[in-house]
């Protein structure tokens, strides 16, 4: 076999490989680094998440379950793994400017859960958007008020001491 034959054969093999690759790989969107069929959950508003993205992908449910038991039974309301914190930071605005609820497939949680076909039960009871700031009570996840309202209780205690 001559050098010319070997050269031609390698050209043919390469061409065949390229043709197969073009058949197998779906066409990527022009400007996207990731294939279009992957879910694209909304990025949070802060610089980074409360934990590494890889860790959150695998363990966010464990963190939320742990936090929920601490909150319900022990009154621990730290903002780091608060469900309200996730929802507030990753809120997706609808056309009317309000955050979407879990009824929309644009909702942060639903983007991945729809893709993975894992049903979320959280929002049968929990609010899936924070909407307006809680006016008469309740902190709003990570946006815990700077003034922790001790002055309010102090005022109340003063008023009952009349």
């Amino acid at each position, binding site marked *: 076999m001559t050098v010319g034959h070997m050269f031609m054969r390698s050209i043919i093999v390469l061409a065949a490989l390229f043709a197969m690759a073009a058949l197998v790989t779906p066409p990527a969107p022009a400007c996207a680094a990731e294939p279009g069929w992957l879910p694209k959950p909304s990025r949070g508003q802060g610089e980074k998440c409360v934990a590494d993205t890889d860790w959150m992908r695998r363990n966010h449910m464990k963190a939320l379950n742990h936090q929920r038991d601490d909150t*319900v039974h022990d009154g621990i309301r730290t903002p780091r793994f608060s469900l309200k914190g996730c929802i507030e930071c990753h809120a997706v605005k609808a056309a009317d400017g309000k955050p979407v609820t879990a009824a929309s497939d644009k909702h942060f949680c639903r983007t991945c859960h729809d893709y993975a076909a894992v049903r979320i039960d959280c929002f049968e009871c*929990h609010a899936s958007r924070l909407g307006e700031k809680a006016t008469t009570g309740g*902190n*709003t996840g990570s946006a815990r008020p700077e003034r*922790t309202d*001790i002055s309010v209780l102090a005022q109340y205690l*003063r*008023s009952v001491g009349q």
Partner: protein
Amino acid sequence: MSCKSTSTGCKSGAACGCAGSSADATDDVRRDFLRGAAATAVTTIAAGVTLYAFGAEPALARAPGEKVTSKVRWGLLIDASKCGDGCTACVTACQTENGWRDTGHPETDAQWIRKLTVKNPKNGASFSLPMMCQHCADPPCVDVCPTGASFKRADGIVLVNKHTCIGCRYCMMACPYKARSFIHEPLEDQKPHAPRGKGTVESCTLCVHRIDEGRAPACVEACSDTAGGAMLFGDLNDPSSEIAKRVAAYRTTRIRSDLGTDPGVYYRNI
């Protein structure tokens, strides 16, 4: 209104010398406490929930990451003589705060707090009072719950953990005060701080989300703001608290105390 800390006659909360400046000081101490910087705050963390003395002004505080403890027992004292006939300020405030409402189905609608009018049929004398979860020390609802969803928090607040509630409604049968409701229909747009959903039982939480922030329950606030000021909230375990003083000083009644449930809600003039 008088200033509790100095026993002098400060007439206005804003103008009173004990209000504005000490509230600011309170916030400063609170921030130090959150940073873990103040030496006094560190001792307080070790002691759990404590009645702080910020200058001369007491205020209750607990760091967000700190567990509730049984050193506190939250309770209410309701003076029926100050409770207006037909006034529903507490009920409305609770609905607004926690997002439950009448939907025109009185048999099945959720009802965290209701107004009762009690009448003596022989002489016509009547009075009215609010009725809600009595936050018993020995709650029958907790005794009967098959999943442990109905529980009493360390600070005396009786709650339903809706994550484990299976909706059997045994607790509703056991409660002598008819304080609990079952949610029959799917709900939307719940309050972020008050999750509620179909298939679970619920009742007054004593506005646990507000208490965890150091605020009084919504009903108490509404009653003192716009109504007769019939409701008093505080720590029954703290002898220096206003509620403990009044419970010690006056004759009070706890409803169906014969059942031995040791309710945390006291009534006067009933």
